[in-house]
């Protein structure tokens, strides 16, 4: 079985990144937006792991970075959900369009 070229993996991660981006810009539901952000983060993780494996197979830097990002993403999800709950309490909605007081 021949080796999968790096570009294939980068295609996957780029697709994942733009799917996440599309979700982030089009969904009004904050939970969906949070999930889109997770997709973006995961595409980054894939990049790290792939580059680590293909460019510097003897080192673990990329792997460690990925673990860091997963940890931080967990923390970030907790904070984001806390914000969403608070938003729901004050606005009775988790639609970002309803929280637009900070405009001109």
């Amino acid at each position, binding site marked *: 079985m021949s080796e999968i070229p790096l570009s294939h993996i980068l295609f996957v991660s780029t697709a994942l990144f733009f799917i996440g*981006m599309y979700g982030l*810009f*089009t969904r009004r539901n904050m939970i969906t*937006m949070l999930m889109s952000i997770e997709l973006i983060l995961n595409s980054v993780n894939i990049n790290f792991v792939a580059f680590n494996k293909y460019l510097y197979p003897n080192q673990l830097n990329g792997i460690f970075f990925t673990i860091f990002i997963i940890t931080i993403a967990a923390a970030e999800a907790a904070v984001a959900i806390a914000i969403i709950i608070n938003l729901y309490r004050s606005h009775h909605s988790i639609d*970002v*369009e309803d929280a*637009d007081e*900070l*405009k*001109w």
Partner: protein
Amino acid sequence: MSYESYITLIPLLPLLSFVLLGLFGRKYFKNFSGIIGTVVLLAITVLSFITAYQYFFVDGKVNDVYQSIIPVKYIWLQFSPNVSIDMGVVLDPISVMMLIVVSFVSLMVHIFSLGYMKGEERFSTYYAFLSLFTFSMLGLVVSTNIFQIYIFWELVGISSYLLIGFYFDKPSAVAASKKAFIVTRFADVGFLIGILILAFHAETLDFKTLIERLTSTQSSQFISITTSSFLGVSMLTWGLTLVFIGGAGKSAMFPLHIWLPDAMEGPTPVSALIHAATMVVAGVYLVARLFPLYSFDVVALNIVAYVGAISALLAAIIACTQTDIKRVLAYSTMSQIGYMMFALGVSRYGSEQGLGYMASMFHLFTHAFFKSLLFLCAGAVIHVVHSNEMKDMGGLRKLMPITHIAFLIACLAIAGIPPFSGFFSKEEILTAAYNSNKLIYTIGVFTSMFTAFYMFRLYFSIFWAKTSPSPLERGWGEAAHGEGTLSMKFPLVVLTICTVAVGFIPFASFVTSDGAPLETPIDIVFSILPVALAVAAILFAARLYRRQNELPEKISTSLGALYRSAYKKFYIDEIYLFITKKIIFNLVGRPAAWIDKNIVDGFMNLLATVTAKISAMIKGLQSGKVQDYALYFFGGVAGLAVLFIYLGK
């Protein structure tokens, strides 16, 4: 007792009472602020008399000539080693004389006001303002420095403004106070420029040094001021004339006199103090203070003389036609100050030629007493009648015997009838004028005749004339006020005694242009003409006004246009209004306003409009939608990435 120990108290005590009454008067001393003011004035009057005694009889003379003494001098602002603004006290014959006049008349007015202003809502404020005025005026007369005199000059201006506008709920009083302030301020611009010219060339602001430098023909300063000229006139003449313009504004000389008649809107005792006896003679005092300098410059002296003479005659003619008694007295004041001015103008420096100087100061001295007496009498009359108009009065001599006698004596004094004080000073002035300028002498004699006429017109209209309806029927009876309180009668009596007595003071041995005593015998033959004219004018006034008759009406109709224009004050107010409203407003004011509104404001409005437009255009970006922001952010990052990738290489 040396001067240093008490001389600064003379101006500073009234300042203290001003601060005290002004800050706390209305709250804490509502009922006895008048007493406080009067006691302070009494103290400084006593101090002034002590000073005068000390100066004139003990240590003022050196070799039979009065020297100027500077007991206190304090450098206030030092510009350079030579030029400084000092605050100090100078004692010389004229300043000591003015100390007595100011403090004494002010004391009388303080006492009179105790009765006159009683029950006034702003009684304490009134006394505070009177104290402020007294402080400023005393500071003015003892000034050692030309800038010090300018500072106090403005202070008397502001206290005059405050007191004219004392009844600030009356629009006419507000207008009058503004008019007085603006006209005198306008004249003071001339004064300031004059000060700057003199001080620039003399390189000092100190009176004594300034006079010394500019009167010694060898000094470099003298050469510099006489050789430099502007429009063909030497700077000395310019400087002195501009200083005189300041004096003319304060002293209500033609054509800057328009504020004085209107200033009669203030309380009557104020008119007696400020607009008759003290502040309005500040201009005369200023010229006298710089007299050694003026005597070097014939052109400036001639301006002083002719302006004085024209004012004297013009005001006397106007006074004959006015019907408001305070306005008559105001024009009379202007006329008498005109006398003082032209007496200075015809005088020269030195013993014999200095007669006019001495006569001017003498007239200033006697005028202060009889004119403040006239005003206080007018105040007493107005207090009873509640009107300023002559036609509302008449037949008051039975009702107000003391006021009647006092007014009669003051009228005789101002008309120049011997042996009252005005006679002596007026004779000196006419003698001085006769010796130097026959035209001015003629004007002086005519003015003196008019003076006798209008004063007795006033006298007869107030105290004689109509007897029906009787005073009691008109509701002025004893029951209402009587003649006023004791505090109102007392100053009248004191000032009457002064009016009779001060003429006998051998004034020429105290106050002369060079300090040396002067012999001034009264020439009987010379005084026949003016006295005879004055008596004739009095008899004429008696014929016209002693009983009500048709004659005054007929005469005024037969004089026609002349009478009307004199009644309208020769349309000088109208000329001023024409010049300011039609010419200055239209040619200067409106274009300036147009530039301000359209160009200056327009530029600012343009900036504001552009900013507002731009912000309206870009405010849509700030939509409040989080995803839009994220999109911009992403766009920005993508843009930067493209930039770095393709341009960073």
